[in-house]
C-alpha cells in the first residue's frame, strides 16, 4: 500500500512542500497525494517533472489523486 498524503484545503505552497519533503525522504518508490485545486495539481506535477518522478493524475469526486512514481 503506497503512502498517502492528504493536502486538500491547504494553501499554496504547502501541498508542494509536503510533496517535496516526501520526495527527498523516499528517494524513489511510489506515493499518493490528494489535492483539491487545479493549481496544486499543476504545481505538484511540475515539481515531479523537475525532480524526475512520473505522475499519474486520477480524478476522485471533486478532488485529484496524484500518484508519484520513481523506480
Amino acid at each position, binding site marked *: 500500500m503506497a503512502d498517502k498524503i492528504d493536502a486538500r*484545503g491547504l494553501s499554496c505552497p504547502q501541498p508542494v512542500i509536503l510533496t517535496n519533503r516526501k520526495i527527498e525522504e523516499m528517494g524513489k518508490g511510489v506515493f499518493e497525494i490528494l489535492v483539491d485545486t487545479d*493549481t496544486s495539481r499543476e504545481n505538484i506535477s*511540475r515539481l515531479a517533472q523537475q525532480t524526475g518522478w512520473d505522475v499519474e493524475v486520477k480524478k476522485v469526486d471533486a478532488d485529484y489523486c496524484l500518484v508519484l512514481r520513481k523506480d
Partner: protein
Amino acid sequence: MTTVKNFFASRWGIVSAGVFVGVFAAVLQKLGNPGNMGICVACMERDIAGALGLHRAALAQYIRPEILAFVLGAFIAALLFREFKPRGGSSPIIRFFLGFFAMVGALVFLGCPWRALLRLAGGDGNAILGLAGLTAGIWAGVLFLKSGYTLGRATKVKSFSGWVFPIAMVALLVLLLVAPQFGRTPEGTPTGPIFFSSKGPGSQHAPILISLLVGLGVGFLAQRTRLCTMGAIRDVILIKNTYLLSGILGIVGAAFFMNLILGQFKAGFTNQPIAHTDYLWNFMGMALSGLAFALAGGCPGRQLFLSGEGDGDAAIFATGMIVGAGFSHNFSMASSPAGPGPYGPIAVIIGLIFCMVVGFSMREKMA
C-alpha cells in the same frame, strides 16, 4: 478547451500573461493612470478605500475599475474552466490582519509587488530597494513554511459564499457609475458617501471602459496561469523553480519596452512619480508586505484572482488590505513623495512583530 488549458499552464502561457500585464500597465498610464501606476493592486485598493470614505486623503479617492475587473475576470475564467470552488475557513481573522499589515507595508514603500516591477520598468531606482525588501520578506516566510507553518485547511462551503465577493465588486462598479452624493455638510452642500479626487493621483485615470476591459483580461489570464509575484520569488528560493518567475520577467520586459516606445521611461532615484527616496523604509515596507504575502500564500493580485475562484479566505485578505489602507492614511502611516509618514516606521515594526508571532505560533509538528 484542453489545448487552451494546456497552453495557459505552459511557460509560454505565463509569459504571455506577464507580457499582457506589462504592456497594458504602460498603456493605461498613457491613457491617464498615474505614473508607473498603470496597474497597482495596493494603490488602487487604497483609492477605493478613499472613494468609500474609509480615509479622507483627498488626493487618493477613486473606485478603480481595474480591481473590480481583476476579480470578475478571474471569476469568469474559473466558471468557464470549472475551477470555481467556493471554500474558506482557514484562519480568516489572521488572514484579515495579514492583509491589513501587507497594505501598511505597501503604502510605506508606495506600491504592491506589481508596481515595484512597473516602477523598475519605468526607470525608478527606488524600486530596487523595494524588490530587495520583498525578497527578504518572502525568504523569511519560506523559513516559516519550511518549519511547518500553516493556517490550516480550508473546507468546501456553500456556493453563494463564493459569489459574495464578485457580487460586491459589481456593487462597487454601480457605485463608480452612480457616485451618489446624498451626504450633506453642516452647511448643506452635498458630500459623499462616494468621494472622487479632483486633483492628484486619485483624479488621474484611464477611461472606465478601457480600465474594465484590461482588468478583465488580466483577471482571466492570471487566473489561468496562476501569475503571482510573491510565488515567483518564493518558488525560486523554496524549490528552485522558475515557472512563475518567467511571468514576472514578462511584466518587467514588456513594461520596459512599452515605456520606451511611449516615452515614459526616466531613469533615476529622485523626482520619480509617486515615490520617495528613503532607502531604509522602501526596503522595510516591502519586507513587511513580502512576509505577509508569503504567510498568506499570495501577492495582492493573486489574492484577488483567488477571491474570483470562490476562495473566501483570499477575499478576507483583500478586505483586510482595503481596511488597512483606510488606517494607513487616517493614522499617518502612509508615505508621500516627501518620505515615510510620521507613524509609518513604527507601524512597519508592529506589522513585522505581528507576522513573526503568526509565523511562530501557527506551526504544526512535522510528521
